[in-house]
């Protein structure tokens, strides 16, 4: 088994995949806690469908670097969704459902009508479930992923206290002069970036899992924000790493294997949380 891993590690694309996978897992878990606590879990899901739609457009017009169209479109939708969440005629969850399903439908339609590829079903499937895209990243894509991930982590660390304040109590934060709306916007933009990144790793349908599971697992075990955030980052990285190893060894699809590992980790945390809780009480 070890030899097999070592053999695979000789290939640069496998090394890239593991580096990028771990970085993506790290930054996707950071904002997960905030999203779950702000009841925004579904925004991640909605945005991933938007990203799929944007990807379809990029494919159809044959762009070489799809990131340049996917990223702005997703960021724009994130901002729109966050704005509508508060006070418009269309309620937040309905708006998310509308945008996400609409984007999914148009994306598939576009790919179907204009596609030049001979294996359409395969293309769609790999965009939705990731399959092998993480292994086919070019050196430039790896670099972009790395830069974006590192900036997400830096932004999170620098704004950690503000994100905490805005998440815990938006009204109070505003009252003491924190620009809560600006930070909400920042959160939305960062989420969009994370989603576009994570699409490479797990495909657009499974992104929410990457964002939500580590946060929920950590919340079972810890009672303060700092520990929850740190632990969810650790869980996410460990799960992504093992998920990728398993998928290399067993030849399973990368995205769904990682998510499966995340689910197992959640179940373990859930029951350990019950045990600890029982001991505390």
């Amino acid at each position, binding site marked *: 088994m070890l030899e097999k891993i070592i053999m695979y590690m000789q290939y640069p694309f496998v090394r890239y995949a593991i580096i990028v996978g771990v970085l993506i897992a790290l930054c996707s878990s950071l904002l997960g806690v905030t999203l779950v*606590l*702000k*009841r925004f879990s579904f925004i991640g899901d909605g945005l991933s469908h938007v990203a799929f739609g944007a990807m379809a457009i990029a494919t159809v017009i044959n762009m070489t670097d799809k990131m340049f169209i996917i990223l702005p479109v997703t960021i724009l939708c994130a901002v729109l969704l966050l704005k509508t969440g508060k006070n418009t005629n269309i309620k937040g969850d309905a708006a998310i459902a509308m945008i996400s399903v609409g984007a999914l439908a148009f994306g598939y339609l576009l790919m179907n009508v204009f596609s030049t590829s001979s294996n359409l079903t395969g293309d769609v499937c790999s965009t939705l479930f990731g399959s092998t895209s993480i292994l086919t990243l070019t050196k430039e894509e790896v670099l972009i992923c790395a830069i974006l991930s590192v900036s997400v982590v830096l932004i999170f*660390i*620098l*704004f*950690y*206290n*503000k994100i*905490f*304040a805005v*998440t*815990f*109590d938006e*009204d*109070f*934060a*505003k*009252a*003491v*002069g*924190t620009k809560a709306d600006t930070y909400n916007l920042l959160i939305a933009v960062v989420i969009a970036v994370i989603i576009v990144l994570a699409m490479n790793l797990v495909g657009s349908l499974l992104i929410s899992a990457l964002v939500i599971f580590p946060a929920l697992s950590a*919340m079972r075990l*810890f*009672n*303060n*924000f*700092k520990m*929850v955030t740190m632990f969810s980052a650790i869980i996410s990285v460990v799960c992504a790493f093992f998920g990728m190893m398993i998928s290399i060894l067993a030849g399973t699809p990368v995205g769904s294997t990682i998510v499966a590992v995340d689910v197992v980790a959640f179940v373990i945390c859930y029951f350990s949380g019950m045990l600890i809780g029982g001991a505390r009480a």
Partner: protein
Amino acid sequence: MALITAANISLGYDKHSIVKELNFTVNSGDYLSIVGDNGSGKSTLMKTLLGLVPLISGQIQFADGLKANEIGYLPQQTVIQKDFPAAVREIVLSGCQGRCGLRPFYNREEKKLAMQNMERMGITDIKDRPYRNLSGGQQQRVLLARALCATQKVLLLDEPVAGLDPNVTSEMYTLVEKLNNEGITIIMVSHDITAAVQYSSHILHMGETVFFGSKEEYLKSSAGKKFLFDFEHVEEKNYA
């Protein structure tokens, strides 16, 4: 000198005014209770004072040295907070957020301030406990400590005793009274008219009849008499 002066203000959301042409002043060291029926605009007034809701017309003046973000605020609890994984210390410290500006981390002074305010509220022994596991009274003390981190002068309390049992309620009032005696101006939205009359120095009554003045004047006024009568009446009915 007046700390806060509201002249002819109209309040509401999206240009629908709920309250028109309201006048009142708050002096340093006052204990003002804002009372009135549901929907009379008490919470809107509070949010307007904090700058969360824009003023429709009129003017609110803050005296020199008091900035709008130097008001400590004790909001009503939200659903999000019920299962929020945060330690008491983290929450109290977040009261210093307004002092930070763009600086990303809290400095030593702010951490000290948070400690002092936790001592003031008697919650140092639970500083590492998770907020979500505390009792309602303890949670209010935590949020009060946080509000104190934001201000030296004025506290705005939005129904601070809602959902607390009678013992804890009177503890809470004593605590607020103590802060008032230490020189902090108190502005409190309350449903509890008897406590408002007992503890406060001034009353702002909102609703069909608007009254603003000292507690003594309020007890003599028609608005006060009617409201107190109704209130006792309801109480009697509840007991019956």
